[in-house]
């Protein structure tokens, strides 16, 4: 067990939540992208969380982002004859991103961030108490 170990663990949780907030922001920003039917749509990004390699004493070492999972490259094909990107049939390609799904993720990511910050704060208080030993 490393000295002040809980701080690093909570830090990994904050990092993971931050990654989730970042990818969600990217998804929302690109939700209304439009491309031609011959090119790829913006792919929804979802971070994949895995437990970090555990410490020698068997206790967990926090969380890690194993990678970013990409959504459908085909997206959705919509009819929008007015668009300058429309093909001969008046079709365009848009990303398969659900705004409501993204907003739910955003709330969850924010909760995760706050929970890890709370744990960090409590650990700090405990460690500060330990520093008063013998004084």
């Amino acid at each position, binding site marked *: 067990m490393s000295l002040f170990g809980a701080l690093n663990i909570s830090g990994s*949780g904050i990092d993971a939540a931050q990654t989730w907030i970042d990818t969600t922001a990217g998804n929302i920003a690109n939700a209304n992208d439009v491309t031609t039917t011959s090119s790829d749509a913006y792919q929804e990004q979802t971070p994949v969380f895995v437990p970090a390699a555990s410490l020698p004493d068997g206790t967990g070492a926090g969380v890690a982002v194993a990678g970013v999972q990409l959504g459908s490259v085909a997206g959705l094909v919509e009819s929008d004859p007015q668009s300058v990107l429309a093909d001969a049939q008046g079709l365009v390609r848009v990303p398969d991103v659900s705004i409501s799904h993204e907003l739910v993720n955003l709330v969850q990511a924010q*909760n995760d961030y706050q929970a890890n910050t709370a744990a960090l704060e409590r650990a700090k208080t405990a460690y500060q*108490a330990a520093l*008063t030993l013998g004084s």
Partner: protein
Amino acid sequence: MDQILGVLQFAVDGLSQRQQVVADNLANTDTPGFTAQQVNFESSLQQALASPDGGQATVTVTASPDAPGSDGNNVDTGAQLIDAEQTTLQYQTMVEMLNAQYRLIQGAAGGSFQ
């Protein structure tokens, strides 16, 4: 006096490990398939103190028996946050008691009881 110091030190170690495990559980609230861990040392300490020939107390880390949700994760964020708060307060209490013991020892060794 020695026994009190030993018990307090053991409790501080156990609480420190619980703090770390709670932090790990909270870091993994959205990791699919993650099973929460829990730290127990109180019952082992109680047994050791109750045994006439002085047993050995141990800190054990076990998997939480809570039922997992749809993603296979069984971390109860609310319960973990309460645990974090409680562990910190207990930790501070133990440190305070250790300091009180040290002051007693210092006084007995010729220092001042302050």
